């Protein structure tokens, strides 16, 4: 039986998400985000609520980062970077809590969503996030969304990735 991170990686890839393992240092995070967002002119960062803020510090200096985006910039930006509250191994989903400033827009409106997921916050099955003893019971209390791969549709005939939501979901698995 592979460990949860490996299972997560396999299942996220099966759901058409990109997963890259990344050291949990500001420099490594910066390099990984830079690589994933290559060519993007506008990036919106959403400050973390659960991860340490310094981990994001290196990102502010990246080219294209908009420091205090207004709504028009949010509507047209190319990349959104958020943390993920938790991950689910069996489905390859990242779970994003809402309510924090910018997180709704940055996880939804931009064509590329980069999510930073700490490997130690991966649970085996989705329902474990509904366990009041896990993660301070936030899974039961907060507004949240399980994100499994990029937005997709089969309504136009073949399966198409990239509909209203992000066209790419890029997960940095922080070890």
């Amino acid at each position, binding site marked *: 039986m592979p460990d949860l991170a490996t299972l997560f990686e396999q299942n996220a890839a099966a759901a058409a998400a990109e997963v890259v393992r990344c050291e949990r240092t500001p420099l490594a995070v910066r390099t990984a985000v830079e690589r994933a967002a290559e060519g993007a002119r506008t990036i919106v960062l959403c400050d973390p609520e659960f991860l340490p803020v310094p981990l994001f510090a290196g990102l502010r200096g990246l080219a294209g980062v908009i420091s205090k985006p207004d709504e028009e910039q949010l509507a047209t930006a190319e990349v959104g970077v958020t943390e993920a509250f938790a991950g689910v191994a069996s*489905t390859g989903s990242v779970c994003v809590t809402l309510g924090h400033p910018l997180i709704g827009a940055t996880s939804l409106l931009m064509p590329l969503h980069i999510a930073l997921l700490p490997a130690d916050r991966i649970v085996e099955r989705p329902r474990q996030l*509904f366990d009041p003893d896990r993660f301070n019971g936030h899974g039961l209390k907060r507004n949240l969304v399980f994100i499994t791969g990029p937005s997709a549709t089969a309504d136009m005939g*073949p399966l198409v990735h990239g509909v209203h939501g992000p066209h790419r979901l890029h997960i940095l698995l922080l070890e």
Partner: protein
Amino acid sequence: MPDSNLNLAPVEAPREIANKSERANLLRAIRMALDIEMPAVRRNTQTFNSNRYRATALLPDYDALKDEARRIKEKAIAELPDLVQNIKTSVRLRGGNVFVANTAKDACRYIVDICRWRGAKLVVKGKSITSEEIHLNPALEAEGIEVAESDLAEFILQVAGEQPSHIIAPAIHYSRERITALFKRKFRTKLPLDTGEALTKFARERLRGKFLYADVGITGANLLAADTGTLMLVESEGNIRMASFLPPIHIAISGVEKIIPTRREMAPFFELLSASGTGQSLSSYTSFLSPPLDDPPFALPGKARKAREFHLVLIDNGRLKMRDDAVLREALYCIRCSACLNSCANFQTVGGHAFGGETYSGGIGGAWEAGTGKLENARFSELCTGCSRCVNQCPVRIDIPWLNENLAERLNGAAAPSPLGSVLSSASGAANDDRSAPASKIFFGNYHYFAKWGSRYSDMSNRIVASSRGRLAMERWLGVDRRRTLRPFPKETLVHAARRLDANPAKSPTAKAILYADVFTNYGLVNRGLATLKVLRALGADILVSECVPEGRAALSQGMIATAKNHAQRAAAELEPHVAGGRDVVVIEPSSLAMFRCDFGHLLDSRVKFQILSASTYDPVEYVVKLLARSGQEAREVFDVARSAGGQKLFFHAHCQQKTIGCASPTESLLRQIGFDVATSNVECCGMAGSFGYKKDFYELSMAVGADLFAQVAEADKDGGKRTLVASGTSCTEQLQAGLKRPVLHPIELLAKILKI
């Protein structure tokens, strides 16, 4: 009886035939669907179907999840009035509003009023079948409010002006090519739009601005939690997230039956829903929101920043009445996953524009149309053949065929009795409650009676059946299609033929059994019965043959439930003394076996009797496997594959109900153990489905369903020539012979031919 297939326009718009309270519309819709929609419907539903089998197989606790989901829903519906009060409190405490609408009209009026009072000009909508039920779009548009459907399937339907054909993929009947043609025509664009990507981009670009500038976002809800006011919203496109997050006002509409007690109890549902619906581990987005959301709504420059506002519109529209109806109450457990649509062979062939009403479609759709509208709107549920393939697929364990049999009973009861129907029902002993069923149903439902007399005077009846005038009369008066080959009645029934055979051999038998002489074996495929006796006696069993009494399958399939109950009691009375005396019951016809195993639970008065009888029944090959295991013999010691006259390559088509009750795989594996090279079909049903394919109104549909099976046989034949066809069901046998003009053996007949001992 007038020929209803004549004098019809060749192509009709789905809207015109959406209401099937008149039977003519059902027949026209079937024809429209077969002519136009079948290729896309088939491809898309079959993709969902195979994905579902894969996804549910990956859930290690699939059955436990289903049990848990069922338990939660049963409790929720029992406590529904309290839950409505609880969710009102929870949502209001968070600053939201709740409106409980008794009728569709009330719901529309409330939503329209909110939009008018807030000066809304543009509403963006996520997919909500409930909003189709209440006809929300026309109500908003009548007030000059623009409605932008943002789910791409709903967008297609809005452009085309059609109603949904599937409960989760409403435009499943559209192929990519037809969408291209539609968009080019309606949007007058010169863009090629010749790929899924191009069409998606085209729609996205049109809709992005709508999201950003919408005054109101309207969504449905997959489930609601009473304790926290949480909505569970499942989607793959991201449009529901946008509609609930970007505009300042969010209105969620939902039937009251979607409320469950607690948010924590949503846990078993969201894996089940995605796996059972689209066949994904989870859909792209599963949101749990307790609105109004905390973060401020989106306000582009030029738009005033407003405070968030949330309205939950709970819709009764007949649901509380359904709750008081023992049959329709079951439909309230439905979580709208669509597994029963995708696993249905008829649905896979015609989709929801034929197998559906104005809003709801498929096996579960009839109960919903009847519950939220009127009984007659459920007429399309006649396309449920009772094949039962959906039963094991339902995540909340609804016995969908039983719902549809009850709807058929009510529709029969609502009709005026016909003179011919009255004569036939008096003669054949139909129960009083069933006497207003149409003559055709009385005939098929009491087939045992007509078969008994037909075989008693077989010379005469076979002459009639072989004559074109006889067939014309049968078609005209009984609805039996002339194009179907009818098997002549045998000179001797199974019961009679068995009396002439040697008595049971063993003094100390390996097993004691009774072969239930089902109507189709006794008056039709007698050889199957004789082969069963031969094989089981060779294995040392002491086996008798029962009297031929109907078990009620035929009556049940016509919605003649009172008659079916009578038949079931008779069959149980015939078999019970033998079972009490220690005999197992062997049942050749799988649809009869499924009666004993499942349907008798509804039909017998005593639960205990049902359980005892059910546990004593066996498919013949299943029984062979049991006897082999008991004696410790290997299959190859008893059966010699080299004796098979048709060679060692087989094509085995399992009967739909046989698969549901788990009797197909023992046959398949025994045949392999003996040394056969076995190819199998993976169609859900052959399309004949008992009497369904014999009916004149459904012949074309039945053959279109069968075409899938015939193609699979042809494909398997490519590998080394024609395979011997093996099928366990009587009607599958007739369908395979009709489609392929080749003989078909029951597995037990094949085994009888290759016995070593």
